[in-house]
């Protein structure tokens, strides 16, 4: 009897090991452990045994049952794992197919550059100021030391909308407007991004373009501070290897005035088509705020000094992205805009 039980157990384990599916396993379970299963049959036949044999055989039968059940659990989980693995293998996808498209979109490159310039100056403690695009002659010219009939008015060919009103030719009027509002408090540290207008239209000029103006006014602001600030800005903007060159220039609202060149990134300064073979690119105009402008704006020019600067955002954008025709910036061809 005991031998039969053991054989039964071995047989069950062998067939479970050979079982290839959960169904087969289930059949095996039914065959041995089911109501009419072989082991069950054996146990049922225990009644015929002597009282002395019964506990021994009973124990042996339970042991066999335990072995079969243990094996059954192990095999079931192994087979389940196998089945899942098989299923997952069948579910594989082509991971190289393109992802579900999200709508693309983007900011205009001019505004990307605006934001970049702004961030640099915000971190230097400059606030952002704003002013009207249609200006008075007073703020656009006179308060900036450009009286009527001043020959330097020719530097900026102007659109007029009335006898005393015009489209601002630069963002500089905001200098005066801001100082008027702030004086006599100090310091004034602003930058002014905005649209400006001049009567010019070709591959390098647009009748509407963008400038960023900057102004720092305080006690003891020096030309050397102007140099340091703009040198820092330009290296932040164009990379640490950028070299700067300051040339004397002329703006009626600054004295001394300067034009700043940066080393040409295309050729590294050795001269190429981009920099007209000079190795330098003109990038911004600057200078110490003219004492008359300070006085007009409500400051004592003996006590207070300052510097101002202005740059064309189109030019910076074109240099930054290697754009060779300014008109592209205003055509708004989507295939152009999608590149930024």
């Amino acid at each position: 009897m005991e031998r039969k039980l053991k054989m039964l157990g071995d047989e069950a384990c062998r067939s479970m090991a050979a079982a290839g599916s959960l169904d087969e396993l289930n059949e095996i379970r039914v065959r041995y452990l089911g109501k009419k299963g072989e082991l069950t049959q054996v146990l049922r036949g225990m009644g015929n045994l002597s009282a002395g044999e019964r506990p021994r055989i009973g124990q042996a039968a339970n042991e066999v049952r335990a072995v079969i059940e243990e094996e059954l659990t192990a095999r079931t989980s192994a087979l389940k794992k196998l089945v899942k693995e098989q299923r997952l293998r069948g579910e594989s996808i082509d991971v190289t197919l393109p992802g579900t498209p999200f709508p693309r979109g983007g900011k205009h490159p001019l505004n990307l550059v605006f934001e970049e310039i702004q961030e640099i100056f915000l971190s230097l403690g400059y606030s952002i100021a704003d002013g009207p695009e249609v200006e008075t002659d007073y703020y656009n010219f006179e308060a900036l030391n450009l009286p009527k009939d001043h020959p330097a008015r020719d530097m900026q060919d102007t659109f007029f909308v009335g006898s005393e009103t015009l489209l601002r030719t630069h963002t500089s009027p905001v200098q005066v407007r801001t100082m008027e509002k702030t004086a006599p408090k100090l310091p004034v540290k602003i930058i002014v991004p905005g649209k400006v207008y001049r009567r010019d239209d070709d591959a390098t000029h647009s009748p509407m373009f963008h400038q960023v103006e900057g102004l720092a006014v305080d006690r003891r602001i020096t030309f050397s501070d102007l140099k340091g600030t703009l040198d820092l800005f330009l290296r932040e903007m164009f990379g640490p290897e950028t070299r700067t060159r300051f040339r004397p220039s002329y703006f009626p609202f600054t004295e001394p005035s300067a034009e700043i060149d940066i080393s040409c990134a295309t050729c590294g300064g050795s001269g190429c088509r981009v920099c007209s073979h000079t190795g330098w690119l003109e990038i911004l105009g600057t200078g110490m705020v003219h004492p008359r402008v300070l006085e007009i704006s409500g400051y004592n020019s003996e006590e207070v000094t300052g510097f101002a600067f202005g740059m064309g955002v189109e030019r910076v954008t074109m240099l930054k992205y290697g754009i060779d025709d300014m008109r592209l910036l205003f055509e708004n061809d989507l295939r152009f805009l999608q590149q930024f």
Partner: protein
Amino acid sequence: MRVSYKWLQEFVDIDISPQELADRLTLAGITVEGVIELGKGIEKVVTGRIESLATHPNADKLMVSSVNVGTENLQIITAATNVREGDVIPVAIEGARLASGLVIKKAKLRGVESRGMMCSGQELGIDPKTMASEQAHGIMILPPGTALGKDAKEILGLDDFILELDLTPNRGDCLSIIGVAREAAALLGRSLKQVQPRFSELPERIDGLFRVDISDVDLCRRFSGRLIKNVHVGRSPLWMQQRLRSAGIRPINNIVDVTNYVMLELGQPMHAFDYNLLKDGHIIVRRSRKGEKIVSLDGSERSLTPDMLVIADPSGPVGIAGVMGGLATEVTEKSVSILLESAFFNPISIRRTSKSLGLRSEASLRFEKGIDIGGCARAADRAAQLIADMGAGDVVSGIVDNVPLPIQERTVTFRPTRATYVLGVEISGDEALRILKSLNFSVQDSGENMLVTVPTYRVDVNLEVDLIEEIARMYGYNRVPDTLPFGQSTRGLKTRQQSFIEKIRCVLAEAGLYEVVTYSFISPRVFDNLNLPAKSTLRNTIKVTNPLSEEQSVMRTILLPGLIEVLSRNYSRQVRDGAIFEIGRIFYPQAEGHIPDERPVLSGAVMGSSSASWNRKPFEMDFYYLKGVLEKLFRNLGTGEIEFRSDTAHTSFHPGRTASLEAGGERLGILGELHPDVAENFGLPEKVTAFEIDLNILMAASGRPVSYINLPRFPGVERDMAIIVQQGIPSSEIFNVIRLAGGELLRSIQLFDIYRGAQVPEGFQSMAFSMKFQAEDRTLTDAEVSERTEAISRDLAHKFNVELRVK
């Protein structure tokens, strides 16, 4: 201004190359745009005389010449028609190289040997515009006495370099050779070579022959005159012609050339009158009288106005002061006596006159920037000297030099300590003194307060800070150290509007729209293209007085047309799908004398579909797409409720597919599909949807503080409901009824389906809602929820007469 390197060297010894000089000048503020080598590449071109000229045996249009080049006679075949026997010309001999790079070789032309080529000015790199018309395209003919066999480059002054200056408007003094030489001398630490003009004069005195009265002393502060007799008007010497050409001026005749030469050399514009045509030898400098006219040198009759200054004789104007002379008193070949004028006129007056006459001349250009009032007489003397030296006339003794008001010396107080304060670099008194002296400023007291006298030609220097700039540019801007301002530190801030706009830009870019930038000025015709009624307030624009074109002649009162044009341009370039936005200002006129009201607005437009993909169908970018974008934007900005109301009145939009937007009862903007006619007007297909929003109003409605609401702790109950309702009832009204009837237990409603078609009667639609009920303090019972849904059904039925299907 074009400056000859050789001419400069007459005034200052320069021992650096033209390019080095150009760099030094540029870094001192006299910007040199370029250095041009005249006669570059030209080799083996010599002077030769045509000894004989005969027709070519085998060709009608060719001539066979014998040209004496000093050492031998060369047989040269030429097609030139402007040469005669005896003419001296530039000859390119065998192996010669011309400006174009052309190399001359011995050749046979129609069987006859030719050993060189006669040259035109152009072939030698001379700008035809600076040559007399008969010579501009033919062979260049040199003066008869020119030595033969000499290097033509030297003879023609082509062994020179030209510095092209790009001067700032304050440096009118450098519109002259002497001015640039002064700068070069200061930079190189050299002294300026300047000699007083010397020449012999006739015994006869000018006093009885010529006088000048200045009536308007505010406009003419000096008039110097020289009289020349026995004038022989003819060609000026070659060197003078070449000097003028190098500056881009065409030689005319010896007298005119001298006046131009002096202008280039000294910066003093001059004019020569035919003395015998001046009535009574009397010049009056006065404002023009009403109705006066003059025929200027260019042959046009000009009407003069009383604010213009004229040079007149007792019979009337003979010249427009500082702008252009009169034709009647022009120097011609017949002239025997001439009057040379060298004067100082008020810069503003000259500027106004030349502007209003539309006449810009080399003279007016200099006068309006302010010339050297101290140099008028010297310039007249220099002109007299040149005329005498070239034997073109005899100088009458003496000069008339009328200076109605004394010329005041300008003095400026200068403190080296102030220079140090402004520049941020130590400027010692000695350094300042050295620099100022090198620029011919005279300094009286060299202590803490220097009294600096400004040379008369430096009209740009008036204040101490101007002197500080002089110090800085000579010291070298690039030697000034780089520092950062110290003092009270500040925090960089954006205005609320800037942050707001930046946020919008980010949200819309994220949502798939591309930002565009269009011009603020538009064509007034776009209002017609937008089908706007004649009385639309949008047509009340600010007009640009002097636009570049009609297309850019009014300031926009609406952003939309700019965006539609962008879509249209893209569409015509086969970009058929597009979603764009712009943030910009619109301009509304205000009362006369006031600047306009500038309002920031946001506009967007879409056409076509989203991009297709292998796993997603493209969707149409229509009204609901753009509305969704706006809803996302509003949510991100934290606006209060924005209402979309059907708007059938706006003529630019589809009457059935347009909504006006309101925020807190204020009109925020519009969203809609363009009217098909408008789309067509702009060359676009139907189904372009666009919006425009006033950003001030949006900003006022935005930025609601976020306040946390407790998460639900008790389960909710969902119920679906479908209703069949007449088409045309705005869903917002249905929502309102449901919300009201649902009460506070109704947490959310979602419209998940709209169906028209089978089983739904014509003119009706089925709308399916999913509603969620939830209470904060308990689990809802079925009865409670049913009570609400029944209330909803009842109200809907009552209000819209709907048929219900509740699930």
